[in-house]
């Protein structure tokens, strides 16, 4: 579904991601792991077209590396970004409403907002409250719900557990698990490698802008030393 080929990301003259390749099959959950500054967010941004990059990004058999960000979203790529970036001056409802921007079927989209409220009763309670007043965990749920409002083909999740208490982190991972069983294709960027490896069908380990390892959980865990130094996973 998503094929990234020879991708490099630049900030000015500085190259932070070096000619990486990876593939995400339809319906699978792929994890992109690595330490701070490895280039995970940069990789996601290049899929979305918000940074300078070279190489190709192929989505549903179409080269999207030259098209505008808005058009990529319209093709069915959705993002729950690092740091959540809820519209804190808007109400919870309005945040979800904007999430359905690319939908033509307004009525169905409105129904879906109701659905999300059933899954997260707390969001329903806070529906008219400004999103900035939600707790971090609630904001994360809102971010994911907002990203799903567009009915995406693929969901990009950038560090959904960042800064959350263990209990809430668990809830977030349970939610991702649910999404997975619904057949949504997911690219999961995480610091919490232990949990991410459990969820993902396949993982790529990024370090200093290079993919240093990839494979399924057991294959990754075999490379014990590398893993513990990069992601803190012990086997």
């Amino acid at each position, binding site marked *: 579904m998503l094929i990234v080929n020879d991708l490099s990301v630049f900030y000015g003259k500085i190259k932070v991601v070096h000619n990486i390749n990876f593939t995400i099959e339809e319906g699978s959950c792929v994890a992109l792991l690595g330490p701070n500054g490895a280039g995970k967010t940069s990789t996601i941004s290049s899929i979305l077209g918000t940074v300078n990059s070279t190489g190709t990004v192929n989505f549903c058999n179409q080269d999207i590396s030259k098209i505008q960000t*808005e058009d990529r979203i319209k093709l069915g790529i959705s993002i729950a970004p690092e740091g959540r*970036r809820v519209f804190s001056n808007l109400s919870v409802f309005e945040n979800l409403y904007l999430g359905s921007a690319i939908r033509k079927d307004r009525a169905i989209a409105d129904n879906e907002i109701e659905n999300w409220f059933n899954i997260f009763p707390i969001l329903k309670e806070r529906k008219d409250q400004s999103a900035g007043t939600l707790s971090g965990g609630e904001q994360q749920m809102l971010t994911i719900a907002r990203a799903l409002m567009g009915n995406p083909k693929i969901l990009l999740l950038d560090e959904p557990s960042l800064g959350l208490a263990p209990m809430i982190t668990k809830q977030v991972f349970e939610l991702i698990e649910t999404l997975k069983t619904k057949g949504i294709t997911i690219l999961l960027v995480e610091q919490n490698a232990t949990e991410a490896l459990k969820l993902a069908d396949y993982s790529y380990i990024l370090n200093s802008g290079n993919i240093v390892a990839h494979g399924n959980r057991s294959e990754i865990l075999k490379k014990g030393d590398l893993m513990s130094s990069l992601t803190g996973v012990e086997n």
Partner: protein
Amino acid sequence: MIDYVVQQSLNALSFGAEYALIALGLAIVFSIMGLVNFAHGEVIAIGGYCMMVMAAIAFRNPIVIIIGAIFASVIMAVFLERIAFRPVRYADATTGLLTAFGVSLILQNLFLLLVSPRPIAVTSMYFLDWPIKLGSIRISSLQIFETVATLLAILFLVLFLKRSFLGIAMRAASLDFEMVRLMGIRANRVIATAFAISGLLAGIAAIFIIARRGAVDPTLGFNPVLKAFVACVVGGFGSLTGAVLGGFLLGALEVGMLVILPQSYGGMKDAFVFAVIAIILVWRPEGILSPQKEKGDKI
């Protein structure tokens, strides 16, 4: 005495209304793309010139002239965005500011060359202005129209920003534009709408300025925009509520100074007004209602 206070308050209100109207036009563009659009004055002037042309080619119906003028300002605002501001959209704020100044100067000179450096009479809006006497209070109908029109424009804007999809997207964009694009909402659409609204407000302002002055010249909009800019700064740049508040505050200060200052100091009104504003800015450097800066992440 009471009459006098009421009289002056009404004056302040109508002065403030004009500043608020123009300040809102500046603020709506600034809140979304961080651009201080000094060419806003020329968008107002275009409305004035449109009235001049329409009167010259014998349009008599005032409704047609009003609609024509507003339309001209909207088109001008959207056109400027397309040809001048879009290319520098992602450049730094200084580039945008210089571009706006450049556009403003070019347009003023074009008006000067193509039309005339001198004021040209446009009397087609005089019909809005007749004296009203309520007891000992004397006001002009124009003051009432201007205040009411401004309040209606604010009401329309609030409804638009709260109820329509694009309006909500614009509020979101004032906080985190990139995230709005990441929802699949076109940046061009949001920005063009912001400019169209600023043009609409400029067109309304043009009608009242012409109704009061009865003439159009190349700097028709420039001075009011400078005042509106000050209103924005006092109110908190980028905040729409702040722009309205700043506009009315500036109106009140100006009238207040005229009342308080002895006749012989009348010429120094602006100096005293700006002194008060300087004090306000010392107290609140970001303006009275500075918009939220944080992006809502709680990490």
